Structures are given as structure tokens and as C-alpha cells.
């Protein structure tokens, strides 16, 4: 942090000012002039919170993607299919048993199993051959999409939100003060907050596992130099399978999350593959904090864009990607 300020004083100043403005926008009561210029504070706060919670969902999908890429250097273009598959499994379980929590566990296991099979049957056979892996995973994603269309049809499914999560909660954020002097607090959907909190917990747990445990150490060593790690006697193939299972399982969980606050239908697989590609490119391939940063940036861009410049909202996401690729092609938080 201090080193960053020393090296880039101008950038640091800009960042500090931006953070200060953001904090003021979130916590202060907006003067009437500002409300007239850019709309009500409630709308702004909602868009910011929506962007962050949507970022939570993107993070869940992209973290698995980036983990797999970081360790194995293979771009798994069937990652979106794992997302959709997990979502459908979660839907089936939640309608069958009525349990929302159980649907996460089963979706994680099911998607992780598919991941293990993918790793053993496909990636292991073509280690180090990027182009072949890419082509095969594109092919697989098309096959998976058709299989899922066959089983689940073109209908859209929604995972039922449990009744204790339906409805809004009051947040301690002032949006306005009524003429009677009574403060108006922000109402926000509880389910989104819970899901965001869960993705933060998962993110922190992943960071701890990677940086504080033995297995994490092995994974990090593998990211740096696979061959030397294998030469030291670590059973690298086993590590690969575990990491692949974890990444795929996270995509499965994300599918249930996506099915809860959005919906599941054919085409969602490619949408989330694209989203995670953008997130990972912005954040930096192979970096978990990068995936988190990228996810929040993309989520915010989508939501703020859809409120303030609805016509061009879709462009904003890709504009960010283009700018990052032009100025910092390795991604914002990539080490190399």
C-alpha cells in the first residue's frame, strides 16, 4: 500500500478522492441539486448494492475458472455448462426435497464429479496442448448444452427462494429525509445480501486455504512451476483433480445462486462463460483476488450502466475489458 503511494502518487491521489466521493455518495443525504441532476439516492444506492451482489455471483463462477487456469493452464470453455448443470441439479433437488441449502450441497457434488470426469477423461490426455483442449471444451460445451436442452427443455426454471429469505430488509443507510423530518432508510432484498455474504465467505475461505494450508502451498507451488513440484514427489495429478473438482463445484453452486435470484434456461451457460472470461481478463488470469476485483467491477458496470445509460449498458462491460487489455494486458491484479 505505502509502496504503491510512493511509486504512483498521482494515481494514489485519484483513488483516494474516488473512494472519498463514493463514501460521501453512499452515506450523505444528497442535496436537492444533485438529486435533480442524477436522480434519487435510493436508485443509486440500489444500483451500487446490486452491482456488488451481482459481482458476488460472478465471483463464484469466475473463481473456479481462474483457479483451474492458474494451476493447469487450461482454458475450460465448458465452465458455463458446469454452471448451468449445477443450477438444474439444484432446481431438481430443491423442488424434490424442498430444501434450499441441500440443493447447494448436491449441486456442488454433482458439478464437482463432472469436473473430475472431465479432468481424468479429457484434460489429462492432452496436457499442455492448449489448442486441442480449447477445441475439445468448446465441443463439450455444445454437447452439454444440447443434452441439457433434451432433459430440461427450453423452459426457464427458478429455484424457489426459501420463505425466510423473501422480501426486503431495512439497511442503516439513509436515502432521504421526509419533510416531516422522519428519516427514510434503504429497503433491500434480503436474499441478495445473504448470497453476497456467502460469496465473501467462500472467497475468504479460498484465500485462506490457498495461503495458509499445506494443500494451498502445493497448489501455489504448482502455479509457479509444475514440473519442479512434480519432481519433489508431490502427486501432481491428484492435486489437479482436486482443484478441478473444487472449481467445477463452485460453478455448480453459482448455478443454484443464479437460479435463485435470476433464472435458468438454455443460453445461460454461454452468458456466464462470457461473464467469467471478462471478469478473469479484467482481474488477471489465475488470480483469486483478481477475480474478486474483476467481478465487482463488471457487476457495478452492468448495474450502474443499466440505470444511468440503459441504451449502452452492454457496451460498458466490454469497454472496460478493452481498456484493461490496452493498458494492462495481464489484468489488474496479475502477478506476471
Amino acid at each position, binding site marked *: 500500500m505505502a509502496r504503491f503511494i510512493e511509486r504512483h502518487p498521482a494515481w494514489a491521489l485519484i483513488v483516494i478522492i474516488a473512494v472519498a466521493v463514493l463514501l460521501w455518495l453512499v452515506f450523505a443525504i444528497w442535496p436537492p441539486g444533485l438529486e435533480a441532476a442524477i436522480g434519487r439516492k435510493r436508485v443509486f444506492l440500489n444500483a451500487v448494492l446490486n452491482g456488488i451482489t451481482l459481482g458476488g455471483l460472478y465471483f463464484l463462477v469466475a473463481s473456479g475458472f481462474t483457479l483451474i487456469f492458474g494451476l493447469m493452464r487450461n482454458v475450460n470453455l465448458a465452465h458455463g455448462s458446469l454452471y448451468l448443470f449445477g443450477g438444474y441439479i439444484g432446481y431438481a433437488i430443491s423442488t424434490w426435497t424442498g430444501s434450499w441449502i441441500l440443493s447447494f450441497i448436491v449441486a456442488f457434488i454433482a458439478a464437482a464429479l463432472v469436473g473430475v470426469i472431465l479432468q481424468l477423461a479429457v484434460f489429462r490426455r492432452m496436457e499442455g496442448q492448449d489448442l486441442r483442449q480449447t477445441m475439445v471444451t468448446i465441443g463439450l460445451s455444445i454437447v452439454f448444452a444440447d443434452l441439457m436442452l433434451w432433459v430440461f427443455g*427450453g423452459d426457464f426454471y427458478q429455484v424457489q427462494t426459501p420463505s425466510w429469505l423473501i422480501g426486503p430488509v431495512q439497511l442503516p443507510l439513509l436515502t432521504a429525509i421526509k419533510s416531516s423530518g422522519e428519516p427514510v432508510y434503504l429497503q433491500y432484498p434480503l436474499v*441478495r445480501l445473504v448470497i453476497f455474504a456467502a460469496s465473501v465467505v467462500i472467497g475468504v475461505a479460498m484465500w485462506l486455504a490457498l495461503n495458509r494450508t499445506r494443500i494451498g502451498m502445493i497448489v501455489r507451488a504448482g502455479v509457479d512451476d509444475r514440473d519442479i513440484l512434480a519432481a519433489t514427489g508431490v502427486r501432481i495429478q491428484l492435486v489437479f483433480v482436486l482443484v478441478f473438482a473444487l472449481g467445477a463445484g463452485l460453478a455448480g453452486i453459482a448455478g443454484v445462486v443464479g437460479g435463485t*435470484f435470476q433464472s435458468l434456461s438454455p443460453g445461460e451457460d454461454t452468458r456466464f462463460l462470457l461473464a467469467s472470461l471478462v471478469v478473469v481478463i479484467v482481474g488477471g488470469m489465475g488470480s483469486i483476488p483478481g477475480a474478486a476485483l474483476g467481478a465487482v467491477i463488471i457487476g457495478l458496470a452492468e*448495474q450502474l450502466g443499466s440505470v444511468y445509460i440503459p441504451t449502452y449498458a452492454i457496451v460498458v462491460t466490454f469497454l472496460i475489458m478493452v481498456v484493461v487489455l490496452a493498458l494492462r494486458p495481464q489484468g489488474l491484479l496479475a502477478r506476471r
Partner: protein
Amino acid sequence: MLKGSLGLIALSSLLFSGTAFAQEKIKVGVTATLEGTYTVLGEDGMRGHQTALNVLGKKIGDKELEFIVASTDATPDSAVRAVRKLIEQDKVQILLSPLSGDEGIAVKNFAKTHPELTFVNAASGAQETTYVDPAPNFFRYNMDGAQWQVGLGKYAYETKGYRKIATVGEDYSFIYTQVFGLVLEFCGAGGQVTNRQWVPLGTKDFASVIAALPDDVDAIYLGLGGADAVNFLNQYQQAGGKAHLMGGSIMIDQTILSSKGSAKNALIGTIAASGQADTWEDPAWQKFVKAYQDSFPENKRFPSPSLLATNYYGSTMALILALRQVNGDLSNNQAKLKDALAKIEIDAPNGKIKLDANRQAIGTNFVTEVVDDGKGALFSKVVKVIPNVNQTLGYDPAVFAKIGLPSRTVPECKKY
């Protein structure tokens, strides 16, 4: 081996069914949105089409109809691609296409490049399709989005007492046309439309759109369909929304009213207008509902046909009846068929339909209100039936032309 036996079967069927082989086929290409946001709409459209075939049969004199289905995703280029494939690869002679608004405009323009073929619109409802530079070989037996909103504005203003409303709609031609019809009538009656929000077709995350809904209005009009509508309602419920709602023709429709989950309950009491009403007591409508229900097992259909099923039924019916009038004669660039199509009046399940000079339907419209049948199923109940709705919505054509074409901002909220 498999190939060999297939060949054998084909050969034997050739030998044993000499008469069937001699029978001439009329090939008809059908498109529906079987992918993307409007999948459910396309599927039910095809059910309506199938119901029409079950009721009317496929025989035209001594010829038989053969249908080839192609899938689209509600984008204009997917529709043109599907239609082109049907014409060039499958050699169809007649098209029953397309389903969605933007597709309709594109297919109408494409129809001009094939003046020898006949195009019967399946269900699309953008105004521009038949109002601006219509194609002489394109026939539409359903009303457009604006016609489908007739009666709603007045009902909202006079009976419900709404004075100020805001609209949320998908950003494409059909919804522009729907909002056009609504705004003309509501503002004409003296109401105000304070805000029009447009979201891209296929939006998943509506949370910010919901947050931006104004709260100083009497009602919010929703012009959404398919997956978008379900996503919106789901997130609206999560956000605890409680405003009065008004609905467009594909928002208040069985495609949404029979979706899974409890989010749809926000729609109970919502007023809407459409080319049909689920609980209409007219015997022809009831007969159609029965035919639809009998054609499919209960878990493979909606409790009652959606607007799309009704439109596909009507257009298939018009085509078959016209073909029978000319005894399947497609000679001379299908001139006789086109003539018959232009003149035919059909007793569609949702009222009498005839075409105007632009080959656009003049039909019956329904103002409805969503009710719960007591067992958790939602239906649209008739409030008012308005016969003989034409494309200029009863306005003098010269005045109507001055309003401009439906778009994000047209028409202005005033009395024309």
C-alpha cells in the same frame, strides 16, 4: 446395417403405398421462437398450430400439407436465417412465420425478395410490419401490439382512477407498439405517463430497474414477456414491491400466469388488454380451449391456451381455409391463394377476423383482470370486449399518420 434396413423400409413403403406416393404435397415452413428468452412462447405457439391441424386436418382436396419447423430466438437475423433455410433448403412454398415483433419486420422485408411465395404471419405484432410499406405477399391475421391495448387506457383512467403511470418494457418494436397503443388512449383520456423505462430483451438482473421505478405514480405498466417477465416478477417479489400493476399482452398471459413459483401472485388484480381473455364465455372460444386441452397431456401444456397459441391457431386456420377455397391451386405464382387470403374472413376462437387493404387484421380486443381460480391457478377474466378494432385504432388515417411510428418516445403523452 441400420442404413440398409432403413432403405428396405423406404423401398417397401414405396411399393405398398402407391396411392400415398402419388399424392402431391404442399410444403409449409413454420418458424417459432424455440430458443432464448421467448422459448415458452414459441412452444405454446406450436401447440396452437398443432391444435389447428388436429381440428381442421391436413388435407387440401387431394393434396396434403407438410409442415417443416425451424427455430428462431426472437432476433430479426435468426428469423431471416430460418426463413431462408426453409425456402432454399426445404423448398417450402408457403411460410407461417414469424412469432416476434422485430422478426416480423425483417421477414416482411424479406418477403419482398420472394414475391412468388406466400407469407402468413404467425403471431408477430409490431405495427411497422404491415403499416409501413407492406409486402403484397405478407398476410397478418392477428392484430398488432397497439390494437391489443385498445380499451386498457380508458379502463385504467375511468374505472380504476389511475392518473399517473410509468412504463417498463423490453426495448424492441412489439413493446414500442404496445406502449404506443396504451399511451395514446391513456393520455387521450387525460392521464399522464411520467416515465418510460426500456430494458434489453433477455435482461436477467432487474434489481436496478426495480429500484428506479418511480413511487409517485398510481400504477406501473409492464411490457415484458417470457423469461424476462418471470425474472422481473421474481426480483420484484424479493424487493418487496407493492405498486398497482398493469400488463401488456404477453405479460398477462398463460406463459407467465402459469409459471412456477409464487412470484406471479403479484399479478392478481392486474388489469391488462390482449387479443384474448382466458375465461371468455363465447362458445367458439370455449371449444378452442377444449380442443387445445384435448390435444396435449396436462403436464405438456398450459391450463388454457396463451395468446401465442391462439395466434398460431388463427393463422394456421386462415391458411388452411384459404387453401381449401382454391383447392390447393398454387399455379401462377400462387395468385389464387393470395387473392383468397386477402378476402377471407375467419371465425377465429377470439372473434371474427378480416383483413384491411394492407392485409392487416381487424379483430376483437379484450380488457381483462387477473383472477385466482381458488386453486392457485391464475387466469385473465374478461372485463370488456371491443369488436372491430382496426390498425389506426379508430383514428382518422391522416391524423394517425401524424402521430409517428412507435418508438421509445413516440407517441408523446397528449391528446391527438
